[in-house]
Protein backbone atom coordinates (compact mmCIF):
# COMPACT_ATOMS: atom_id res chain seq x y z
CA UNK A 1 0.00 0.00 0.00
CA UNK A 2 1.28 3.40 -0.98
CA UNK A 3 1.44 5.94 1.80
CA UNK A 4 -0.11 9.25 1.06
CA UNK A 5 2.36 12.09 0.89
CA UNK A 6 1.86 14.62 3.65
CA UNK A 7 3.70 17.41 1.86
CA UNK A 8 1.34 19.99 0.48
CA UNK A 9 2.66 23.12 -1.09
CA UNK A 10 1.20 25.74 1.17
CA UNK A 11 1.54 29.46 1.52
CA UNK A 12 4.80 29.37 3.42
CA UNK A 13 6.40 26.46 1.62
CA UNK A 14 9.44 27.48 -0.33
CA UNK A 15 10.01 26.01 -3.75
CA UNK A 16 13.25 26.24 -5.69
CA UNK A 17 12.89 26.00 -9.42
CA UNK A 18 15.03 26.82 -12.42
CA UNK A 19 14.01 29.34 -15.02
CA UNK A 20 16.16 28.68 -18.03
CA UNK A 21 18.69 28.00 -19.46
CA UNK A 22 16.38 27.53 -22.44
CA UNK A 23 13.49 29.65 -21.25
CA UNK A 24 12.41 31.94 -24.09
CA UNK A 25 11.98 35.02 -21.92
CA UNK A 26 15.60 35.01 -20.75
CA UNK A 27 16.59 35.78 -24.38
CA UNK A 28 19.48 33.36 -24.34
CA UNK A 29 21.16 30.75 -22.25
CA UNK A 30 20.78 32.25 -18.81
CA UNK A 31 19.53 30.35 -15.79
CA UNK A 32 17.69 31.95 -12.90
CA UNK A 33 17.43 29.89 -9.77
CA UNK A 34 14.18 31.04 -8.20
CA UNK A 35 13.13 30.72 -4.59
CA UNK A 36 9.37 30.88 -4.71
CA UNK A 37 6.67 31.20 -2.09
CA UNK A 38 3.58 30.33 -4.05
CA UNK A 39 3.82 32.66 -6.99
CA UNK A 40 5.86 35.26 -5.14
CA UNK A 41 9.55 35.47 -5.91
CA UNK A 42 11.65 35.46 -2.74
CA UNK A 43 15.07 35.28 -4.28
CA UNK A 44 16.58 35.19 -7.74
CA UNK A 45 20.05 33.75 -8.20
CA UNK A 46 21.33 34.28 -11.74
CA UNK A 47 23.70 31.60 -13.03
CA UNK A 48 25.70 32.69 -16.01
CA UNK A 49 28.47 31.06 -17.97
CA UNK A 50 26.49 28.91 -20.38
CA UNK A 51 27.79 30.85 -23.38
CA UNK A 52 31.22 31.70 -22.05
CA UNK A 53 33.68 31.67 -24.93
CA UNK A 54 36.65 33.27 -23.24
CA UNK A 55 36.76 36.29 -25.49
CA UNK A 56 39.10 38.13 -23.11
CA UNK A 57 41.56 35.24 -23.09
CA UNK A 58 41.23 34.67 -26.83
CA UNK A 59 42.04 38.35 -27.37
CA UNK A 60 45.44 37.83 -25.77
CA UNK A 61 46.41 35.66 -28.75
CA UNK A 62 45.00 37.99 -31.40
CA UNK A 63 46.35 41.14 -32.97
CA UNK A 64 44.45 44.38 -32.47
CA UNK A 65 42.83 44.11 -35.89
CA UNK A 66 41.67 40.60 -35.14
CA UNK A 67 40.19 41.47 -31.74
CA UNK A 68 37.61 43.63 -33.53
CA UNK A 69 35.74 40.61 -34.81
CA UNK A 70 35.61 39.14 -31.31
CA UNK A 71 34.09 42.28 -29.82
CA UNK A 72 31.21 41.90 -32.27
CA UNK A 73 30.26 38.72 -30.56
CA UNK A 74 29.84 40.15 -27.07
CA UNK A 75 26.83 42.40 -27.40
CA UNK A 76 25.77 41.46 -30.89
CA UNK A 77 23.05 44.11 -31.05
CA UNK A 78 25.61 46.87 -30.41
CA UNK A 79 28.30 45.48 -32.70
CA UNK A 80 29.27 48.89 -34.03
CA UNK A 81 29.74 50.42 -30.61
CA UNK A 82 31.81 47.46 -29.47
CA UNK A 83 34.05 47.80 -32.54
CA UNK A 84 34.27 51.51 -31.90
CA UNK A 85 35.37 51.07 -28.29
CA UNK A 86 38.30 48.87 -29.29
CA UNK A 87 39.22 51.09 -32.25
CA UNK A 88 39.11 54.27 -30.17
CA UNK A 89 41.37 52.66 -27.60
CA UNK A 90 43.97 51.70 -30.20
CA UNK A 91 43.80 55.16 -31.75
CA UNK A 92 44.13 56.81 -28.34
CA UNK A 93 47.14 54.68 -27.47
CA UNK A 94 48.89 55.41 -30.75
CA UNK A 95 47.89 59.08 -30.76
CA UNK A 96 46.18 58.85 -34.14
CA UNK A 97 43.61 61.41 -35.17
CA UNK A 98 41.06 59.86 -37.54
CA UNK A 99 39.56 61.94 -40.39
CA UNK A 100 36.36 63.90 -39.81
CA UNK A 101 34.51 61.66 -42.25
CA UNK A 102 35.27 58.62 -40.12
CA UNK A 103 34.11 60.35 -36.96
CA UNK A 104 30.78 61.37 -38.45
CA UNK A 105 30.13 57.99 -40.05
CA UNK A 106 30.99 56.22 -36.80
CA UNK A 107 28.52 58.37 -34.91
CA UNK A 108 25.80 57.72 -37.48
CA UNK A 109 26.45 54.00 -37.27
CA UNK A 110 26.33 54.09 -33.49
CA UNK A 111 22.95 55.78 -33.55
CA UNK A 112 21.59 53.42 -36.21
CA UNK A 113 22.77 50.52 -34.06
CA UNK A 114 21.08 52.02 -31.05
CA UNK A 115 17.86 52.42 -33.01
CA UNK A 116 17.83 48.85 -34.30
CA UNK A 117 18.73 47.53 -30.88
CA UNK A 118 15.93 49.47 -29.19
CA UNK A 119 13.48 48.37 -31.90
CA UNK A 120 14.34 44.75 -31.30
CA UNK A 121 14.12 45.32 -27.56
CA UNK A 122 10.68 46.90 -27.95
CA UNK A 123 9.58 43.99 -30.11
CA UNK A 124 10.82 41.38 -27.66
CA UNK A 125 9.63 43.26 -24.59
CA UNK A 126 6.09 43.33 -25.93
CA UNK A 127 6.33 39.64 -26.64
CA UNK A 128 7.57 38.96 -23.10
CA UNK A 129 4.41 40.59 -21.82
CA UNK A 130 2.23 38.61 -24.19
CA UNK A 131 1.72 41.04 -27.08
CA UNK A 132 2.90 39.14 -30.15
CA UNK A 133 2.03 41.94 -32.58
CA UNK A 134 4.85 44.16 -31.33
CA UNK A 135 7.36 41.57 -32.43
CA UNK A 136 6.36 41.82 -36.07
CA UNK A 137 6.12 45.61 -36.06
CA UNK A 138 9.45 46.10 -34.35
CA UNK A 139 11.24 43.75 -36.71
CA UNK A 140 9.63 45.39 -39.74
CA UNK A 141 11.26 48.72 -38.92
CA UNK A 142 14.51 47.07 -37.88
CA UNK A 143 14.72 45.50 -41.32
CA UNK A 144 15.11 48.94 -42.87
CA UNK A 145 18.20 49.66 -40.78
CA UNK A 146 19.63 46.21 -41.42
CA UNK A 147 19.28 46.87 -45.15
CA UNK A 148 21.37 50.02 -44.75
CA UNK A 149 23.98 47.96 -42.91
CA UNK A 150 23.91 45.14 -45.41
CA UNK A 151 24.33 47.41 -48.39
CA UNK A 152 27.35 49.20 -46.98
CA UNK A 153 29.27 46.47 -45.23
CA UNK A 154 27.77 43.19 -46.23
CA UNK A 155 26.42 41.87 -42.96
CA UNK A 156 23.37 42.43 -40.88
CA UNK A 157 24.39 41.63 -37.34
CA UNK A 158 28.13 41.08 -36.88
CA UNK A 159 29.74 43.79 -38.95
CA UNK A 160 33.44 44.03 -37.97
CA UNK A 161 33.25 47.30 -39.83
CA UNK A 162 34.89 49.91 -37.62
CA UNK A 163 38.57 49.04 -37.35
CA UNK A 164 41.59 50.76 -35.81
CA UNK A 165 42.34 53.76 -38.00
CA UNK A 166 38.95 54.18 -39.58
CA UNK A 167 36.56 51.90 -41.43
CA UNK A 168 37.06 48.63 -43.31
CA UNK A 169 35.78 50.06 -46.59
CA UNK A 170 34.00 53.18 -47.69
CA UNK A 171 30.25 53.38 -47.24
CA UNK A 172 28.00 52.64 -50.18
CA UNK A 173 26.96 55.66 -52.33
CA UNK A 174 23.35 54.99 -51.34
CA UNK A 175 24.19 55.23 -47.63
CA UNK A 176 23.14 58.86 -47.28
CA UNK A 177 19.97 58.65 -49.33
CA UNK A 178 18.84 55.51 -47.53
CA UNK A 179 19.19 57.16 -44.13
CA UNK A 180 17.33 60.20 -45.45
CA UNK A 181 14.54 57.87 -46.51
CA UNK A 182 14.56 56.07 -43.22
CA UNK A 183 14.27 59.09 -40.89
CA UNK A 184 10.84 60.33 -42.08
CA UNK A 185 9.65 56.72 -42.39
CA UNK A 186 10.51 55.97 -38.80
CA UNK A 187 9.22 59.31 -37.54
CA UNK A 188 5.87 58.21 -38.92
CA UNK A 189 6.07 54.70 -37.45
CA UNK A 190 7.32 55.55 -33.97
CA UNK A 191 3.97 56.96 -32.75
CA UNK A 192 2.51 53.56 -33.63
CA UNK A 193 4.70 52.08 -30.92
CA UNK A 194 3.01 54.37 -28.42
CA UNK A 195 -0.46 53.57 -29.70
CA UNK A 196 0.14 49.84 -29.59
CA UNK A 197 1.88 49.44 -26.28
CA UNK A 198 2.64 52.59 -24.29
CA UNK A 199 -0.94 53.55 -23.52
CA UNK A 200 -2.28 50.03 -23.40
CA UNK A 201 -4.07 49.32 -20.14
CA UNK A 202 -2.70 45.77 -19.78
CA UNK A 203 0.82 46.97 -20.42
CA UNK A 204 0.52 49.85 -17.95
CA UNK A 205 -0.81 47.58 -15.22
CA UNK A 206 2.05 45.18 -15.73
CA UNK A 207 4.86 47.72 -15.86
CA UNK A 208 4.02 50.57 -13.50
CA UNK A 209 5.49 50.25 -10.01
CA UNK A 210 7.10 46.93 -10.93
CA UNK A 211 10.77 46.50 -10.15
CA UNK A 212 11.53 49.76 -8.39
CA UNK A 213 15.16 50.86 -8.41
CA UNK A 214 16.29 54.03 -6.69
CA UNK A 215 19.08 56.23 -7.96
CA UNK A 216 21.39 55.27 -5.08
CA UNK A 217 20.88 51.58 -5.75
CA UNK A 218 21.49 52.07 -9.44
CA UNK A 219 24.83 53.73 -8.68
CA UNK A 220 25.71 51.07 -6.11
CA UNK A 221 25.05 48.25 -8.57
CA UNK A 222 26.72 50.07 -11.45
CA UNK A 223 23.60 50.10 -13.59
CA UNK A 224 24.28 52.13 -16.70
CA UNK A 225 22.48 52.88 -19.90
CA UNK A 226 18.72 53.27 -20.23
CA UNK A 227 18.16 51.09 -17.15
CA UNK A 228 20.19 53.47 -15.01
CA UNK A 229 18.72 56.59 -16.60
CA UNK A 230 15.25 55.28 -15.80
CA UNK A 231 16.21 55.72 -12.15
CA UNK A 232 17.54 59.23 -12.63
CA UNK A 233 21.22 58.25 -12.75
CA UNK A 234 22.84 60.52 -15.32
CA UNK A 235 25.35 58.13 -16.89
CA UNK A 236 25.37 58.86 -20.61
CA UNK A 237 28.98 58.59 -21.80
CA UNK A 238 28.00 60.45 -24.96
CA UNK A 239 27.29 63.52 -22.80
CA UNK A 240 29.90 63.18 -20.08
CA UNK A 241 32.87 62.11 -22.16
CA UNK A 242 32.03 62.82 -25.80
CA UNK A 243 33.84 60.69 -28.36
CA UNK A 244 33.71 60.65 -32.18
CA UNK A 245 31.27 63.37 -33.28
CA UNK A 246 29.04 63.52 -30.21
CA UNK A 247 30.54 66.85 -29.09
CA UNK A 248 28.98 68.71 -32.03
CA UNK A 249 25.45 67.29 -32.00
CA UNK A 250 22.58 68.57 -29.95
CA UNK A 251 20.68 65.91 -28.03
CA UNK A 252 19.08 65.45 -24.64
CA UNK A 253 20.04 62.87 -22.10
CA UNK A 254 16.76 61.17 -21.26
CA UNK A 255 16.22 60.93 -17.52
CA UNK A 256 13.25 59.51 -15.67
CA UNK A 257 13.14 59.42 -11.91
CA UNK A 258 10.48 56.78 -11.23
CA UNK A 259 12.87 53.85 -11.56
CA UNK A 260 10.21 51.27 -12.40
CA UNK A 261 9.82 49.07 -15.46
CA UNK A 262 7.68 51.68 -17.15
CA UNK A 263 10.32 54.39 -16.67
CA UNK A 264 12.97 52.17 -18.25
CA UNK A 265 10.58 51.57 -21.12
CA UNK A 266 9.97 55.31 -21.57
CA UNK A 267 13.70 56.06 -21.58
CA UNK A 268 14.25 53.75 -24.53
CA UNK A 269 11.29 55.06 -26.49
CA UNK A 270 12.48 58.65 -25.95
CA UNK A 271 16.03 57.66 -26.84
CA UNK A 272 14.78 56.52 -30.22
CA UNK A 273 13.46 60.04 -30.83
CA UNK A 274 16.79 61.50 -29.75
CA UNK A 275 18.68 59.10 -32.02
CA UNK A 276 16.57 60.27 -34.92
CA UNK A 277 17.45 63.86 -34.04
CA UNK A 278 21.17 63.05 -34.00
CA UNK A 279 20.87 61.30 -37.35
CA UNK A 280 19.07 64.29 -38.84
CA UNK A 281 21.83 66.63 -37.74
CA UNK A 282 24.66 64.47 -39.03
CA UNK A 283 23.37 62.92 -42.23
CA UNK A 284 23.92 66.08 -44.28
CA UNK A 285 27.29 66.78 -42.71
CA UNK A 286 29.26 63.73 -43.85
CA UNK A 287 32.44 65.40 -45.12
CA UNK A 288 34.39 64.04 -48.07
CA UNK A 289 37.75 62.51 -47.43
CA UNK A 290 39.50 59.31 -46.59
CA UNK A 291 37.65 56.55 -44.84
CA UNK A 292 40.79 55.37 -43.05
CA UNK A 293 44.25 56.48 -42.09
CA UNK A 294 47.16 54.36 -43.19
CA UNK A 295 47.99 51.92 -40.43
CA UNK A 296 50.95 49.59 -40.14
CA UNK A 297 50.08 45.98 -40.95
CA UNK A 298 51.00 44.99 -37.41
CA UNK A 299 49.89 47.40 -34.70
CA UNK A 300 52.03 47.49 -31.58
CA UNK A 301 50.70 49.60 -28.74
CA UNK A 302 53.29 51.36 -26.58
CA UNK A 303 53.85 49.88 -23.15
CA UNK A 304 51.21 50.93 -20.67
CA UNK A 305 47.60 50.64 -19.61
CA UNK A 306 44.71 52.05 -21.60
CA UNK A 307 41.02 52.45 -20.95
CA UNK A 308 38.28 53.61 -23.27
CA UNK A 309 34.56 53.71 -22.70
CA UNK A 310 31.64 54.17 -25.06
CA UNK A 311 27.90 54.18 -24.67
CA UNK A 312 26.32 51.11 -26.22
CA UNK A 313 22.60 50.58 -26.51
CA UNK A 314 22.62 48.94 -23.08
CA UNK A 315 25.02 51.06 -21.13
CA UNK A 316 28.65 51.79 -20.64
CA UNK A 317 31.16 49.52 -22.30
CA UNK A 318 34.71 49.87 -21.08
CA UNK A 319 37.78 48.29 -22.65
CA UNK A 320 40.92 47.97 -20.55
CA UNK A 321 44.13 46.90 -22.20
CA UNK A 322 47.53 46.26 -20.65
CA UNK A 323 50.23 46.33 -23.29
CA UNK A 324 53.88 45.35 -23.03
CA UNK A 325 54.68 46.78 -26.43
CA UNK A 326 53.98 43.50 -28.20
CA UNK A 327 51.63 42.98 -31.11
CA UNK A 328 49.32 41.07 -28.78
CA UNK A 329 47.78 42.65 -25.68
CA UNK A 330 49.17 41.37 -22.40
CA UNK A 331 45.78 41.46 -20.72
CA UNK A 332 42.41 42.71 -21.88
CA UNK A 333 39.23 43.25 -19.93
CA UNK A 334 35.81 44.32 -21.08
CA UNK A 335 33.55 46.09 -18.63
CA UNK A 336 30.29 45.06 -20.20
CA UNK A 337 27.03 46.80 -19.30
CA UNK A 338 24.89 43.67 -19.19
CA UNK A 339 27.01 41.97 -16.56
CA UNK A 340 26.33 44.78 -14.08
CA UNK A 341 22.74 45.16 -15.17
CA UNK A 342 21.98 41.47 -14.64
CA UNK A 343 22.82 41.22 -10.96
CA UNK A 344 20.35 43.84 -9.86
CA UNK A 345 17.53 41.49 -10.86
CA UNK A 346 17.43 39.89 -7.41
CA UNK A 347 16.89 43.30 -5.86
CA UNK A 348 14.18 44.24 -8.36
CA UNK A 349 12.19 41.02 -8.45
CA UNK A 350 11.87 40.29 -4.73
CA UNK A 351 8.27 40.34 -3.65
CA UNK A 352 6.90 40.38 -7.17
CA UNK A 353 5.24 37.56 -9.10
CA UNK A 354 7.02 35.28 -11.58
CA UNK A 355 5.28 37.01 -14.49
CA UNK A 356 6.71 40.31 -13.25
CA UNK A 357 10.18 38.80 -13.20
CA UNK A 358 9.82 38.32 -16.95
CA UNK A 359 8.79 41.95 -17.34
CA UNK A 360 11.72 43.12 -15.19
CA UNK A 361 14.34 41.07 -17.01
CA UNK A 362 12.86 42.32 -20.26
CA UNK A 363 13.10 45.92 -19.14
CA UNK A 364 16.79 45.48 -18.28
CA UNK A 365 17.32 44.49 -21.93
CA UNK A 366 19.82 41.71 -21.30
CA UNK A 367 21.99 40.24 -24.01
CA UNK A 368 23.42 37.04 -22.61
CA UNK A 369 26.63 36.65 -24.69
CA UNK A 370 27.65 40.06 -23.35
CA UNK A 371 27.31 38.82 -19.77
CA UNK A 372 29.43 35.72 -20.26
CA UNK A 373 31.76 37.00 -22.99
Amino acid at each position, binding site marked *: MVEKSEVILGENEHLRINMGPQHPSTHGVLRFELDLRGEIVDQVIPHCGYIHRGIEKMSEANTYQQIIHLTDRMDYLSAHQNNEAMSLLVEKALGIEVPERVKVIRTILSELSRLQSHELWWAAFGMDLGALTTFFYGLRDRERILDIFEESFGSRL*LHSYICPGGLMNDVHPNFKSRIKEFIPYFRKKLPEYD*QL*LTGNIIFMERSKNIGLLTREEAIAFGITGPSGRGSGFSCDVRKHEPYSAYDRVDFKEILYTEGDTYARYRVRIDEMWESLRILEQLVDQIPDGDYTVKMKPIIKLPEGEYYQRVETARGELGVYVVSTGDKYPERIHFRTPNFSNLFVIDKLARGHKIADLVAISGSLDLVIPDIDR
Partner: protein
Amino acid sequence: MNAFFNYFSEIGHGIGTLLKGMRVTSGYFFRPREIITQKYPENRATLKMFDQFKGEVVMPHDKNNNHRCTGCGICENNCPNGSIQILTRKETTPEGKSVRVIDKHIYHLSMCTFCGLCVKTCPSDALAFGQTFEHAVFDRQKLTKVLNKPGSSLKKDVKE
Protein backbone atom coordinates in the same frame (compact mmCIF):
# COMPACT_ATOMS: atom_id res chain seq x y z
CA MET B 1 -21.20 56.94 -6.04
CA ASN B 2 -17.80 58.38 -6.95
CA ALA B 3 -16.05 55.02 -6.60
CA PHE B 4 -18.79 53.47 -8.69
CA PHE B 5 -18.25 56.06 -11.38
CA ASN B 6 -14.45 55.62 -11.27
CA TYR B 7 -14.83 51.88 -11.66
CA PHE B 8 -16.75 52.21 -14.90
CA SER B 9 -14.65 55.05 -16.25
CA GLU B 10 -11.56 52.91 -15.73
CA ILE B 11 -13.14 50.08 -17.66
CA GLY B 12 -14.08 52.51 -20.40
CA HIS B 13 -10.57 53.94 -20.47
CA GLY B 14 -9.10 50.44 -20.64
CA ILE B 15 -11.29 49.43 -23.55
CA GLY B 16 -10.42 52.71 -25.23
CA THR B 17 -6.69 52.00 -25.06
CA LEU B 18 -7.21 48.49 -26.37
CA LEU B 19 -9.23 49.83 -29.31
CA LYS B 20 -6.50 52.37 -30.01
CA GLY B 21 -4.01 49.58 -30.48
CA MET B 22 -6.45 47.52 -32.49
CA ARG B 23 -6.99 50.43 -34.86
CA VAL B 24 -3.31 50.21 -35.81
CA THR B 25 -3.38 46.46 -36.32
CA SER B 26 -6.68 46.44 -38.21
CA GLY B 27 -5.30 49.16 -40.47
CA TYR B 28 -2.49 46.84 -41.46
CA PHE B 29 -4.95 43.98 -41.83
CA PHE B 30 -6.35 45.76 -44.88
CA ARG B 31 -2.94 47.04 -46.06
CA PRO B 32 -0.85 43.90 -45.60
CA ARG B 33 1.77 44.94 -48.13
CA GLU B 34 3.18 47.52 -45.71
CA ILE B 35 3.87 45.02 -42.95
CA ILE B 36 5.60 42.31 -44.96
CA THR B 37 9.39 42.49 -44.92
CA GLN B 38 10.33 39.75 -47.37
CA LYS B 39 8.71 36.52 -48.55
CA TYR B 40 11.97 34.69 -48.51
CA PRO B 41 11.65 31.15 -49.81
CA GLU B 42 9.13 32.21 -52.43
CA ASN B 43 11.20 35.08 -53.81
CA ARG B 44 14.33 33.00 -54.32
CA ALA B 45 14.30 33.50 -58.08
CA THR B 46 14.27 37.29 -57.88
CA LEU B 47 16.22 37.74 -54.66
CA LYS B 48 19.42 39.66 -55.27
CA MET B 49 21.86 40.33 -52.48
CA PHE B 50 23.75 43.60 -52.16
CA ASP B 51 27.12 43.81 -53.92
CA GLN B 52 28.98 44.09 -50.63
CA PHE B 53 27.22 41.08 -49.12
CA LYS B 54 29.63 38.77 -47.34
CA GLY B 55 28.35 35.34 -48.28
CA GLU B 56 31.57 33.33 -48.51
CA VAL B 57 35.15 33.90 -49.56
CA VAL B 58 35.73 33.14 -53.23
CA MET B 59 38.65 33.48 -55.57
CA PRO B 60 37.56 35.11 -58.84
CA HIS B 61 38.90 33.47 -62.00
CA ASP B 62 38.90 35.09 -65.42
CA LYS B 63 37.78 33.33 -68.61
CA ASN B 64 41.23 31.80 -69.21
CA ASN B 65 40.99 30.10 -65.82
CA ASN B 66 43.57 32.43 -64.29
CA HIS B 67 43.46 33.66 -60.71
CA ARG B 68 45.48 36.37 -58.98
CA CYS B 69 46.76 34.47 -55.93
CA THR B 70 50.53 34.40 -55.56
CA GLY B 71 50.46 32.26 -52.43
CA CYS B 72 52.10 34.87 -50.21
CA GLY B 73 50.17 33.69 -47.15
CA ILE B 74 49.10 37.09 -45.85
CA CYS B 75 45.44 36.02 -45.69
CA GLU B 76 46.45 32.87 -43.83
CA ASN B 77 48.34 34.95 -41.26
CA ASN B 78 45.58 37.49 -40.87
CA CYS B 79 42.75 35.01 -40.42
CA PRO B 80 41.86 34.97 -36.71
CA ASN B 81 40.34 31.49 -36.82
CA GLY B 82 42.66 29.55 -39.06
CA SER B 83 40.03 29.06 -41.71
CA ILE B 84 42.50 29.52 -44.58
CA GLN B 85 45.31 27.12 -45.44
CA ILE B 86 47.57 27.61 -48.43
CA LEU B 87 49.60 24.76 -49.89
CA THR B 88 52.31 25.94 -52.27
CA ARG B 89 54.94 24.28 -54.42
CA LYS B 90 58.05 25.51 -56.22
CA GLU B 91 58.01 25.56 -59.99
CA THR B 92 60.71 26.43 -62.46
CA THR B 93 59.81 28.79 -65.24
CA PRO B 94 61.20 28.37 -68.80
CA GLU B 95 63.64 31.18 -68.00
CA GLY B 96 65.08 29.08 -65.21
CA LYS B 97 63.64 31.07 -62.30
CA SER B 98 62.01 29.18 -59.46
CA VAL B 99 58.64 30.64 -58.45
CA ARG B 100 56.07 29.84 -55.80
CA VAL B 101 52.76 28.53 -57.12
CA ILE B 102 49.69 27.67 -55.08
CA ASP B 103 48.70 24.05 -55.05
CA LYS B 104 45.53 24.47 -53.05
CA HIS B 105 43.94 27.47 -51.40
CA ILE B 106 41.86 25.71 -48.78
CA TYR B 107 39.01 27.61 -47.15
CA HIS B 108 37.08 26.22 -44.20
CA LEU B 109 33.67 27.87 -44.37
CA SER B 110 32.69 26.23 -41.09
CA MET B 111 35.33 28.20 -39.21
CA CYS B 112 34.92 31.51 -41.01
CA THR B 113 33.50 34.46 -39.10
CA PHE B 114 33.32 36.81 -42.10
CA CYS B 115 35.48 39.47 -40.52
CA GLY B 116 36.80 40.39 -43.96
CA LEU B 117 40.47 40.69 -42.99
CA CYS B 118 41.65 38.26 -45.70
CA VAL B 119 39.87 40.13 -48.47
CA LYS B 120 40.97 43.51 -47.16
CA THR B 121 44.64 42.68 -46.67
CA CYS B 122 45.22 40.64 -49.86
CA PRO B 123 47.97 42.57 -51.71
CA SER B 124 46.99 41.27 -55.13
CA ASP B 125 43.18 41.37 -54.78
CA ALA B 126 42.92 37.65 -55.30
CA LEU B 127 40.05 37.13 -52.86
CA ALA B 128 36.52 38.48 -52.86
CA PHE B 129 33.22 37.85 -51.15
CA GLY B 130 30.64 35.75 -52.95
CA GLN B 131 26.92 36.38 -52.84
CA THR B 132 25.65 32.89 -51.96
CA PHE B 133 24.15 32.47 -48.52
CA GLU B 134 22.43 29.10 -48.43
CA HIS B 135 25.31 27.20 -46.93
CA ALA B 136 23.46 24.37 -45.19
CA VAL B 137 24.84 20.93 -46.09
CA PHE B 138 24.38 17.46 -44.66
CA ASP B 139 28.09 16.66 -44.45
CA ARG B 140 30.50 18.90 -42.62
CA GLN B 141 33.34 18.08 -44.98
CA LYS B 142 31.52 19.81 -47.79
CA LEU B 143 32.20 23.09 -46.00
CA THR B 144 35.93 22.74 -46.67
CA LYS B 145 36.47 24.19 -50.10
CA VAL B 146 39.41 24.55 -52.46
CA LEU B 147 39.15 28.05 -53.87
CA ASN B 148 41.48 27.80 -56.86
CA LYS B 149 39.87 25.89 -59.70
CA PRO B 150 41.62 22.77 -61.03
CA GLY B 151 44.11 23.55 -63.77
CA SER B 152 44.10 27.27 -63.01
CA SER B 153 47.26 29.32 -63.03
CA LEU B 154 48.49 32.72 -61.96
CA LYS B 155 47.54 35.64 -64.13
CA LYS B 156 50.49 37.09 -66.01
CA ASP B 157 50.32 40.70 -64.83
CA VAL B 158 50.16 39.96 -61.10
CA LYS B 159 53.40 40.89 -59.36
CA GLU B 160 54.31 39.75 -55.90
